[in-house]
């Protein structure tokens, strides 16, 4: 019968915490004891096996899937990034927006439900529906109401002071945007002005 503490020494060895004296004791015992030698060998082998499977990789699109599940990014950051990418446009647009001075007053005035005019939009109370199977052409803008998209919108979707629901079968070719705060409202105008300015420049370039 082997001394109980030999097994203890094996674990100390495997933890790399054994003292030289104890290591010598262990080695000498293993040389003379077949049984303990087998146990020691089996321990080392099972560790090697476990280590050998440590090469698994995360599934495809893992990062994108996590990012899609995160709470919405703070608008300040989004805006910061956009401003960095379009500094001149942003400055020019902000100037134009503030010059017209109407942005804030329109925000306060426009509390009533309204929707862009496309024939195949269905309106019930304050809910606008893009019916399944229908294709709505052009940008859809809903103010102070809810938009449900079951069909297709060929253009941008903007919901001001409301919510939009995109059914799994629904489809929007352009951007979707919800605007629910004054800050968003100004932001929206800056971008809109910038977009118009860009388009204007592109058009005059094309001529």
């Amino acid at each position, binding site marked *: 019968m082997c001394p109980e503490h030999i097994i203890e020494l094996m*674990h100390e060895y*495997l*933890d790399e915490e054994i003292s030289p004296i104890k290591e010598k004791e262990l080695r000498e015992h293993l040389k003379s004891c077949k049984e303990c030698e087998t*146990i020691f060998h*089996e*321990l080392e*082998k*099972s*560790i090697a*096996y*476990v*280590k*050998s*499977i*440590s090469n*698994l*990789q*995360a*599934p495809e699109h*893992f*990062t994108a*899937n*996590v*990012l899609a*599940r*995160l*709470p919405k*990014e*703070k608008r*300040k*950051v989004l805006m910061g*990034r956009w401003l960095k990418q379009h500094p001149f446009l942003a400055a020019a647009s902000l100037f134009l927006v503030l010059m017209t001075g109407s942005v804030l007053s329109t925000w306060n005035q426009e509390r009533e439900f309204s929707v862009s005019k496309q024939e195949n939009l269905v309106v019930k109370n304050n809910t606008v529906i893009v019916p399944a199977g229908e294709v709505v052409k052009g940008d859809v803008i809903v103010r102070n109401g809810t938009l449900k998209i079951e069909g297709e919108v060929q253009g941008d979707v903007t919901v001001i002071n409301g919510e939009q629901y995109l059914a799994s079968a629904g489809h929007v070719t352009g951007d979707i945007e919800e605007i629910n705060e004054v800050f968003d409202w100004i932001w929206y105008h800056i971008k809109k002005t910038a977009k118009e300015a860009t388009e204007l420049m592109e058009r005059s370039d094309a001529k």
Partner: protein
Amino acid sequence: MEAIIKKRIKQVIKGDQDAFGEIIEIYKNSVYQLCYRMLGNRHEAEDMAQETFIRAYVNIKSFNQDRKFSTWLFRIATNLCIDRIRKKKPDYYLDAEVAGTEGLTMYSQLSSETQLPEKELESLELQETVQKEILKLPEKYRSAIILKYIEDLSLNEISEILDLPIGTVKTRIHRGREALRQQLRYV
């Protein structure tokens, strides 16, 4: 490395999700591996690994920036997996069997679709055997063994992740090793 992480964390705290994407890229494999080895099911592992990063993102302000980020992250992942194991309902096993995407089936799918060289087949079989034996360990030995030998972490880090004294971690690793020895000796 740690300096880059610290910089990215500061950006994340400001709300920058792109910076968080970079953090995910760095740790996704080790977090997914930890979850998979704990749970033995690809679908569940992906779920828990995603959840780990989402919790990290949401709670990033409570992370002490003087500590190692990976320790904190592994702690979230380990706790989520242990919770999941404890909550595992019996019907989940049924689902997994019906879905048939785990364990042995990965091997059979591969072997029926593609002719792998003998050697790779053998190593795949071995990997599955080892995974199966790890799953047989009680969860407290399992987590310690995985952190030690698959994530290759020090006893100190493991003790921080599991929030246990080093002595307890050692005992768990010893018992885990002993159990694995008995299970894997004839492989």
